[in-house]
């Protein structure tokens, strides 16, 4: 397949990956500044677990008539027809995970251990439910390895609308969110609605992760949420520069990863993550210029 043919054939997937490359690092930037980057790792895994649980429950729900006269095979063979269904379970998985991570906060410093435990549990649950489902194994395996980029206009529109809405809201409330994250008590004294702002951030991140997991898979989301902000932090001398650099690193990683994926014929998700890791490497190796 020539590059032009690949661009034509995979255009919706390519656009979805580029859009995620621009927007995910912005969301990840807020997670980074709040020292909750692990959420960017754990939540996509919870979303994948949600999809796997959805597949496991699919035959039972079909038997109960939840989809009318549609057969399980029809839903399983046409992923587009079940987009809303999978999305619902991805969202359920993400927000269950988010609630668990919020509950995991404790003053004893066990938060990271609990998050790691939640991540391990979600990973195991994903594999177990996918294997136990007669229809979901291939699909979920594809999501996990980043091979299943079955993105059509509907998926792209859903992803673009979600990313655009979340990014716009976070842009609008950026100053409030930065203050709440940097100095919560001062934010409260100046009558910022800290809890509502934190909820806005959680819902924005959760929604993007649920939709993004269904479109580009959890591996690419891990990489794009966590790595570009990590690389940007070394070189950013202001908050504004930090978010621009994060987004720029994300877009370059997405473009470079896609290009590499085409030439070496490997799944795009690991290629994009490898490119993002390379973009974070100089920051890890060299100290920030003063």
């Amino acid at each position, binding site marked *: 397949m020539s590059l032009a043919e690949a661009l034509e054939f995979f255009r919706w997937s390519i656009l979805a990956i580029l859009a995620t490359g621009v927007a995910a690092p912005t969301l990840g930037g807020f997670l*980074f500044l709040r020292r909750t980057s692990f959420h960017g790792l754990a939540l996509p895994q919870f979303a994948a677990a949600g999809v796997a649980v959805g597949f496991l429950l699919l035959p039972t729900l079909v038997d109960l008539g939840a989809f009318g006269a549609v057969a399980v095979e029809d839903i399983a063979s046409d992923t587009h027809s079940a987009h809303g269904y999978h999305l619902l379970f991805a969202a359920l998985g993400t927000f269950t995970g988010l609630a668990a991570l919020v509950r995991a906060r404790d003053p004893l410093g066990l938060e990271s251990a609990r998050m790691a435990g939640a991540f391990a549990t979600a990973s195991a649950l994903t594999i177990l439910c996918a294997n136990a489902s007669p229809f979901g194994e291939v699909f979920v395996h594809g999501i996990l390895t980043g091979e299943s980029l079955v993105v059509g206009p509907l998926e792209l529109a859903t992803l673009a609308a979600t990313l655009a809405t979340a990014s716009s809201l976070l842009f*609008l409330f*950026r100053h*409030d969110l930065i203050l709440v994250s940097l100095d919560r008590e*001062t934010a409260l004294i*100046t009558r910022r609605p800290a809890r509502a702002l934190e909820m806005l951030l959680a819902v924005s991140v959760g929604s993007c992760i649920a939709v993004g997991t269904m479109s580009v898979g959890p591996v690419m989301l891990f990489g794009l949420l966590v790595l570009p902000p990590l690389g940007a932090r070394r070189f950013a*001398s*202001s*908050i504004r*520069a930090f978010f621009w650099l994060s987004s720029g690193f994300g877009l370059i990683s997405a473009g470079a990863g896609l290009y590499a994926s085409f030439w070496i014929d490997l799944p795009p998700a690991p290629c994009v993550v490898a490119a993002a890791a390379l973009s974070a490497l100089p920051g890890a190796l060299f100290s920030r210029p003063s």
Partner: protein
Amino acid sequence: MAEPRDAPAVGRVVLELSDVSLGYGGEAVLQGVHLEVRAGERVAILGPNGAGKTTLLRGLVGLISPMKGEVKGSNSRFGVVPQRERLDPIFPITTRELVLQGAIRRLGGWHRGYSMADGERAGDLLAELGLAPQADLPLSHLSGGQRQRALVARALLTDPEILLLDEPTSGVDRQSTEVILAQVERVAREDGVAALLVTHDTRALQERVDRAWRVDSGTVQAELTVAQGQELQEPEVSA
């Protein structure tokens, strides 16, 4: 410079606590607190660690509701100078970006940004506090004293009726201490801003506050007077 604002009349009571008890989870940390603060006054809040100074501050600004009694004035505009160690160094924030946070109540426009007037005023405050050369440097490049001055500039940009300063001179060089206290004195005198300074550093504040409260043994125990140019001392006659 920004437009002059309506200054509160000096001497007017801006904060008043009547028989207030403050605490957490039904357990009182401070009881029977009677205090008042007038516009333009500078009050030092003294006391050992764990005595309840932070609880008192949280009660004054309305972060915790009184278990008993009444706090009048907790809805005032507060400018807060927290302990600088509370700011997470992971933030790549510049001095100017930090100071502009003081204008957060006045965000406007479709993009909810800071106004040009607030940008100019932030620049003026940075210059007044001797931080103009550091305005666009990351906060992490500043010394402790410079960071403290940046926090004071942020608090002043809130256009406060009451300034709360938590250990403003602790671990700060003499020059920064002088600049900070001179600014507090200026806004108290010119704008009628009341200032509450929580501190252990009584030596630095001796000549710079009008009176002091001592928080100890579960209440605000004694009200001290500080005459200009004299050491902190117990009032000769207490009501």
